[in-house]
């Protein structure tokens, strides 16, 4: 009678295929989302709104906190006077129609402050301007 053979020992190598799988997928995710994530981490309480415009995934963000701190994308900006030159530098080489600048201003700021920021953005060459809002998802009464 033939003895049943013991199964061969599993190969001692670690299977790297899943690791490479996950790593590649992460790289792709980061590549795709990196341009969208250029947003400052400064705390901003955005005003809420129900309506939403057609959106473009890529934009340049201009952030202003309640205490007046400014940031262009994720980099801090010293003062309002610095916004236009910095923005002009940032927009260099971007075709006019893609020049979308979204102003992320805190809800507690006065309109005068926000308007000065909008003016500075236009001076810096922003062709399309947006005002950032926090999406309200509840159903309207």
């Amino acid at each position, binding site marked *: 009678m033939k003895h049943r053979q013991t*199964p061969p020992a599993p190969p001692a190598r670690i299977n790297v295929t899943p690791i490479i799988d996950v790593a590649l997928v992460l790289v792709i995710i980061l590549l795709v*989302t990196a341009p*969208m994530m250029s947003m400052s981490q400064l705390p901003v309480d955005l*005003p809420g*709104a129900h309506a939403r415009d057609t959106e473009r995934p890529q934009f340049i963000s201009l952030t202003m906190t309640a205490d007046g701190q400014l940031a262009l994308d994720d980099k801090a900006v010293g003062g309002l006077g610095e916004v236009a030159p910095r923005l002009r530098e940032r927009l260099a080489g971007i075709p006019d129609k893609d020049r979308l600048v979204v102003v992320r201003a805190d809800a507690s700021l006065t*309109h005068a402050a926000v308007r000065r920021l909008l003016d500075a953005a236009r001076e810096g060459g922003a062709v399309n*301007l947006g005002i*950032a809002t926090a*999406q309200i998802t509840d159903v309207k009464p």
Partner: protein
Amino acid sequence: MKTRRDQGAAEGPLCEINTTPLIDVSLVLVVILMVASPLAFESSFGVRKGAPLAQAAVVDDVPDRVELAITGENRVEVNGRAVAVDQLAGALQPLLAADGRKRDVAVSCADLVSHGVFVRVLDIAKLNGAADIAVAEK
């Protein structure tokens, strides 16, 4: 004599469910959600630069452009007629949806009004069918 079940028990690892792909996929989903969540909760209104609001009274009953002037935290003038922000939707509806044509809205805002109120007015205008929003200069 060994039964089939005994043999199965001896070859334990071969009978386990392979969880690696499951963990793979769930980790990737977690990362996608982490990356995408700040984007999903933020939106924006496109605004144009507008000419200063006309000083003269609006002559036509249904003009091509609706002019909104936010004069206080709860006071808006719609084509020169004052209404409270809460009643703005009702005041705007007949103007914006007059003949099925989308109308532009020009908004001017007093300096000391908060940005939150300003965006609330823009939101109401958008929800009631404003095509394009222009923020008037001072």
